[in-house]
């Protein structure tokens, strides 16, 4: 009997942080990895090859020595826990004790082409590893 009660108390304690919990994820375009762009060889790969494999870039801009194509992608992770839910059944008011955290991983892959649309060089703008779902803000 005592064992069963301990089990249920332990379960309730484990479940408490998940009450009033929100998990949101927003992703813009498909994340490109170094493996996805490994086929690009400067001086050989053309714009057509790049577009065939990666699709059209998000932006094309002029640079001093040619054209710059940029592929943008983003990952946003948001998690929120409202510990006020624990007190809800026992109080006449609607209490809130919210912990939330947002992690934004913005990255871009840039490919520079010469005037005949052949790749000159390529690089990731930033290498941000996406933050985990972790609502603790401190």
């Amino acid at each position, binding site marked *: 009997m005592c064992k069963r009660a301990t089990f249920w108390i332990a379960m309730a304690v484990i479940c408490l942080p998940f009450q009033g919990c929100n998990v949101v*994820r927003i992703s813009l*375009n498909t994340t490109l990895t170094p493996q996805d762009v490994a086929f690009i060889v400067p001086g050989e790969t053309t714009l057509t090859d790049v*577009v065939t494999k990666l*699709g*059209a870039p*998000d932006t094309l801009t002029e640079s001093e020595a040619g054209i710059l194509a940029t592929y943008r992608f983003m990952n946003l992770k948001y998690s929120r826990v409202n510990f006020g839910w624990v007190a809800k059944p026992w109080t006449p008011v609607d209490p809130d004790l919210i912990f939330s955290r947002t992690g934004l991983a913005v990255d871009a892959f840039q490919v520079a082409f010469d005037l005949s649309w052949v790749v000159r060089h390529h690089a990731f703008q930033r290498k941000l590893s996406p933050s985990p*779902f972790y609502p603790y803000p401190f």
Partner: protein
Amino acid sequence: MDQNHSSEKRGITMKTNRYILLLLLTVALFQGCAFSRGTVGDTITPEAVAAIHQGSTTRTELLHLLGAPDRLFQLNGRDVLHYYRYDAKAGSLLLILLNFTRLSIKSDDLFVVLNKEGVVEDIISSTRTNGLKFRFWPFGE
């Protein structure tokens, strides 16, 4: 005869009950579900893209085909017309105590490079929104 009739009737009732149970189960599973969608821009149809020919389509024909571009800029002295369309699909699983939401945004882009004579020199296009699905699970890829 009567026994056959009553067993047939019982069979139909059981079947109906099973359908009602299945319906209730389906409704129960989909309660607290939300589907949202947002789009920006007109659809760039493959037919319209196929109608653009490198070296022959003129600026006037292009504008007649696709309308005014969303963006116009210059690239090494050549005009580039950019047409785009954004599609966003969000799926939410609202389980009262625990809510999951996932929003996926993708774009279709078409760049048409015109030479100094106003004739199409290059076409860069891709459709990313075709594979866009409503997703609920925020974890993983």
